[in-house]
């Protein structure tokens, strides 16, 4: 059965092809083709899962290869492999995809490009599944890019909307910036191990340990980057005439400070660390980690099921999956993992803060996703391999649930702005309750799936060798998560409807049933990872295994969550506390958050504008310098020389003659001025030339 795993991505791919070519004929039936395909994939996955666990006893990973491309004297192979991680991902992807596609029948009903939507979803699913079963890093990269493509297509699905198409482009480009890292990492591994097969690479992982890479001036580069970022930040914040000098000043100050503070010494890194960091850069792009997180909130312009599937549950988790998949390389030395942990922790808190002030329901969820992905990264980074992946799985279910729930809300109210919502608790009961369950899971209330996974991450962070910073970040993140989710719930479902124009209604069954399935999973999925008796950890683990249960950690985590819920409830559900008094002192915080820390503006100032200017400058250079001056200039000179010959006749010879004529005139010999084409002058030139040639060659040499 396992050898049939290639069918899993191929079936949706076939569905994609079928819908694309037969789309106009299929019309509404396209959805059923797509769903049939994903159900088949799910069934095959299930079969393979059984095979893996019960026949193979989840022992050695099964790998299958085929020759793909000859490369010189060697051959590049392509293949697929199955292990527990794969199985887990297969289930996550197929289930969520299935639910989302069913949900979409209702959500996308009546869209003019209805078949196309399902085609793209199928293509996405195919690509995502092939990413999961790939056992060569090259195939992973290809699938990785293809999911990026489908993400682009789906974000820009309503491409008539300018924001949608801009968001799509942004998503593709920003992730591609990350992909370059993946690509370079791939090349580095390929070059140094001579293979792209994961098994082969891992086998040689130890060889990569030797510190070979000598990176000079990393500190200086970092200082420069910081300086530029500060310049951009100041440029974004400041207004008026002081803007440019202020920005330059800020940039210089920060650069100077960083230059002084950051040690400049050359950095020695092992190849594995470099490769891991490059791969992680790819993951940062895909999983929307700081600083490449900017595309994900914008990506909410896509249809909501897309957000649920791609930008919450699966594709964005691919970065985490990549880190997990390449864990043997990452763990060769700790440098890369430390970076992963810090970046993850920072992102977890950083994104969560922005979630607090957003008013768009999907935006909040988007920042929540970024934050949770940060969690997962953090988990992986601090050595919690199992924890990170466990959170990936649970998060997939409850975040998909949340997005679909918000989709249901949007479908019901026709708006995404939470300030126009309120009181939906009564009007949309199923949506409300499933939403509450998922929120609880996300907030990490004990008993819900999120609790178990988050707890494991915090536990791993607690035991991290690098200190407790990451752990506290995790706790703060937990608090913030609970806080903004409660705010979201409150604004959306509690209170009274704020906009009387909106007549909300509960969604149809095709939309509600997936919500219920996912809500169930949001509760149950946690129980395969009970602390101490984790089935999940039994199958999916790396290295040393789990830490002892720590009640402190559990208490702190849960406490933070409960505190967050409580605080938020006191503000929005039972408005006891008020923000207004804080405004004068902390208004800038809100401005800062509402502007997303000015990250978009910084990129605009630092990257996009210089780029556009440079393209124009280059083009001008091309037109005016290379083409006009050099090429046409040569031509021009040639032409000029040719006329010069005429001019030589006309002005030099003639000019001398004219000059003579002028002299002659002044001398009283009034004669005509111009004469040429005249044989005497020919004779004159002839004689002069002969004398010149003769004089030079005979007398001077």
């Amino acid at each position, binding site marked *: 059965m396992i050898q049939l795993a290639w069918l899993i991505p191929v079936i949706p791919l076939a569905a994609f092809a079928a819908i694309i070519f037969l789309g106009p004929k299929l019309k509404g039936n396209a959805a059923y083709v797509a769903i049939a395909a994903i159900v088949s994939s799910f069934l095959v996955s299930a079969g393979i899962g059984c095979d893996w666990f019960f026949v193979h006893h989840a022992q050695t990973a099964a790998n299958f290869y085929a020759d793909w491309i000859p490369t010189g004297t060697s051959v590049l192979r392509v293949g697929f492999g199955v292990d527990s991680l794969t199985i887990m991902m297969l289930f996550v992807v197929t289930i969520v995809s299935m639910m989302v596609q069913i949900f979409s029948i209702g959500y996308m009903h009546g869209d003019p490009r209805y078949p196309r939507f399902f085609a793209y979803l199928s293509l996405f699913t195919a690509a995502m599944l092939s990413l999961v079963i790939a056992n060569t890093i090259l195939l992973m990269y290809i699938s990785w890019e293809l999911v990026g493509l489908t993400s682009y297509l789906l974000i820009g699905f309503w491409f008539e909307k300018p924001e949608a198409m801009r968001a799509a482009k942004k998503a593709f480009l920003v992730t591609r910036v990350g992909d370059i890292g993946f690509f370079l990492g791939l090349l580095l591994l390929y070059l140094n191990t001579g293979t792209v097969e994961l098994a082969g690479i891992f086998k040689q992982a130890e060889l990569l340990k030797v510190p070979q890479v000598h990176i000079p001036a990393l500190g200086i580069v970092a200082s420069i980057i910081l300086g530029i970022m500060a310049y951009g930040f100041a440029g974004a914040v400041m207004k008026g005439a002081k803007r440019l000098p202020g920005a330059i000043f800020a940039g210089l100050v920060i650069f100077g400070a960083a230059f002084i503070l950051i040690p400049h010494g050359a950095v020695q890194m092992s190849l594995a660390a470099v490769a891991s960091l490059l791969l992680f850069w790819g993951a940062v792009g895909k999983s929307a980690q700081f600083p490449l997180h900017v595309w994900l909130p914008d990506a909410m312009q896509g249809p909501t099921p897309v957000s649920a599937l791609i930008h919450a549950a699966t594709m964005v988790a691919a970065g985490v999956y990549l880190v997990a998949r390449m864990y043997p390389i990452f763990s060769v030395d700790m440098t890369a993992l430390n970076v992963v942990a810090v970046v993850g922790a920072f992102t977890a808190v950083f994104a969560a803060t922005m979630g607090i002030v957003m008013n768009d329901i999907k935006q909040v969820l988007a920042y929540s996703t970024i934050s949770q992905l940060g969690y997962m990264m953090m988990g992986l980074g601090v050595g919690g391999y199992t924890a990170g992946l466990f959170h990936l799985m649970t998060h997939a279910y409850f975040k998909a649930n949340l997005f679909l729930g918000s989709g249901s809300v949007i479908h019901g109210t026709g708006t995404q702005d939470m300030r126009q919502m309120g009181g939906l608790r009564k009007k949309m009961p199923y949506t409300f309750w499933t939403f509450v369950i998922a929120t609880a899971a996300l907030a990490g209330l004990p008993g819900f799936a999120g609790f178990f996974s988050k707890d494991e991450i915090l536990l791993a962070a607690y035991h991290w060798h690098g200190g407790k910073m990451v752990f506290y970040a995790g706790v703060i993140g937990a608090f913030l998560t609970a806080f903004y989710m409660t705010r979201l719930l409150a604004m959306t479902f509690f209170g009274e409807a704020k906009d009387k124009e909106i007549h909300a209604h509960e969604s149809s069954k095709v939309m509600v049933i997936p919500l219920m399935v996912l809500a169930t999973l949001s509760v149950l999925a946690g129980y395969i990872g009970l602390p101490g008796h984790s089935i999940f950890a039994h199958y999916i683990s790396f290295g040393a295994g789990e830490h002892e249960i720590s009640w402190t950690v559990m208490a702190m985590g849960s406490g933070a969550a409960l505190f967050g819920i409580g605080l938020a409830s006191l503000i929005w559900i039972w408005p006891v506390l008020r923000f207004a008094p804080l405004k004068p002192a902390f208004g800038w915080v809100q401005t800062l958050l509402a502007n997303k820390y000015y990250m978009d503006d910084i990129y605009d100032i630092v990257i996009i504008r210089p780029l556009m200017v440079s393209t124009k400058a280059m083009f001008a250079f091309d037109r005016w310098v290379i083409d006009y001056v050099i090429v046409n200039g040569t031509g021009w000179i040639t032409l000029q020389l040719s006329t010069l010959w005429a001019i030589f006749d006309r002005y030099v010879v003639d000019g001398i003659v004219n000059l*003579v004529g002028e002299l*002659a005139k002044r001398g009283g010999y009034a004669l005509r001025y111009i*004469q040429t084409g*005249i044989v*005497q*002058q020919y004779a*004159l030139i002839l*004689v002069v030339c002969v*004398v010149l040639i003769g004089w030079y060659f005979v007398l001077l040499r």
Partner: protein
Amino acid sequence: MSITGYQIAFIIVAAMTVGSAVMVVILPNILRSALFLAFTFLGVAGLYVLANAELLAAMQVLIYVGAITVLIMFALVLTQQLMGAKIKQSSRGWLLAAPAAALMFAFLVKGFIQPFNKAASGAVASGPAPADAGTLVSIARMLLQPYVLPFELASLILLAALVGAIVIAKEDKE
């Protein structure tokens, strides 16, 4: 170095020749310069005589002075214009032409005559010329033996020139 009679004669003839030539090129009246051309030719014939080339001198007088000058006179009369002294015969280009010609002369002197003068060589005749050097017989012998081909060719050239001159000069009646 004493000056011989030959040399005195040479100087006189040469002065006449060059002087007439100067007149040829600068005289505004073209008929007069044609006359001076005849004098130049005569002077050249004199030089030939001084160089023991009597036959050539005779030819020079016959052909140049006799034929060519007359031909030129005829042509001048036929074209009958620009003969009056009032019309400037020279183009004002002489301001350039004079230095150019002077430079040419200087070049010939420095590039040919002076090196030639300095380089004594075995090619120079050692004794006096043979008695029959410039006579009709010796030249005729050469013309009809080794140089018969150029001789014939010259006749062909004259024929071609004749035909060409007639074709070009005659007036076609349309």
